[in-house]
């Protein structure tokens, strides 16, 4: 049985639009290999529950987190945002991806508030990766994934 999920093309278009709108940096997101296991990542997740059940995760390496937060807050390159602002910015990225993924999938469903962790996040065992974007931005890994609930 096939599991309904956004295509990589849909997901990439959405992430690219979001980056242009909110981060506003001229550097492009580029395709990349999956991040190495030993690269520490910030992870943000939202879940969608209802007619469609799934989870969206956005993972970024620390340099990307700092640059994204600077871009979203309009900070200069020499300004370091605090950890709360970084968590807020990364949470908003996953909220926007999650809300748009929810809109692409059959409804009705409910979007959770984002959860952000400074480190790897434990994914529920019933969730399976359906779509993944492995990207790099300003030389730092960026990963966006959609996971769907495995049918019972």
């Amino acid at each position, binding site marked *: 049985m096939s599991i309904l999920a956004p295509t990589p093309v849909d997901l990439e278009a959405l992430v690219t639009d979001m980056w242009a*709108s909110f981060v506003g940096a001229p550097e492009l997101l580029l395709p990349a290999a999956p991040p190495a296991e030993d690269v520490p990542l910030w992870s943000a997740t939202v879940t969608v529950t209802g007619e469609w059940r799934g989870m969206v995760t956005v993972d970024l390496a620390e340099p990307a987190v700092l640059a994204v937060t600077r871009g*979203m807050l309009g900070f200069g390159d020499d300004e370091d945002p605090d950890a709360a602002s970084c968590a807020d910015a990364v949470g908003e990225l996953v909220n*926007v991806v999650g*809300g748009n993924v929810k*809109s692409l999938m059959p409804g009705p469903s409910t979007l959770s508030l984002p959860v952000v962790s400074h480190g790897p996040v434990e994914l529920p065992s019933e969730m399976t990766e359906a779509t993944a974007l492995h990207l790099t931005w300003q030389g730092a890994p960026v990963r966006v994934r959609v996971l769907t609930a495995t049918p019972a």
Partner: protein
Amino acid sequence: MKILVADDSRVMRQIVIRTLRQAGHGGHEVVEAENGRQAVELVQTEAPDLVLSDWNMPEMSGIDALLTLRGAGNAVPFGFVTSEGSDEMRARAEQAGAAFLIAKPFTPEAFDEALSSVGLVAS
């Protein structure tokens, strides 16, 4: 004119305010709320000319804030700025009395068009 921006994300409130400026609406006074409950309180005390609200917030959601305001007889123009732009959400927003829904990610042009629809001219 006074605009109330309600979003639990401080970063997103800053982006909304910046986008208002980019859309030519930087001259309006802006008041900020962190959730729907605070937005309802500030509508009553600050009497804004427009509310721009996120949908999904802790304490009280944007749609519950709108329903609370309308239930109390308050007709302040109210628009959503949310990541959830499906037809279903737009219909729910309209039924509750929202003037518009701007989907994230957005452009300054989308803001100008939405604000113009409720009579707010660039300032």
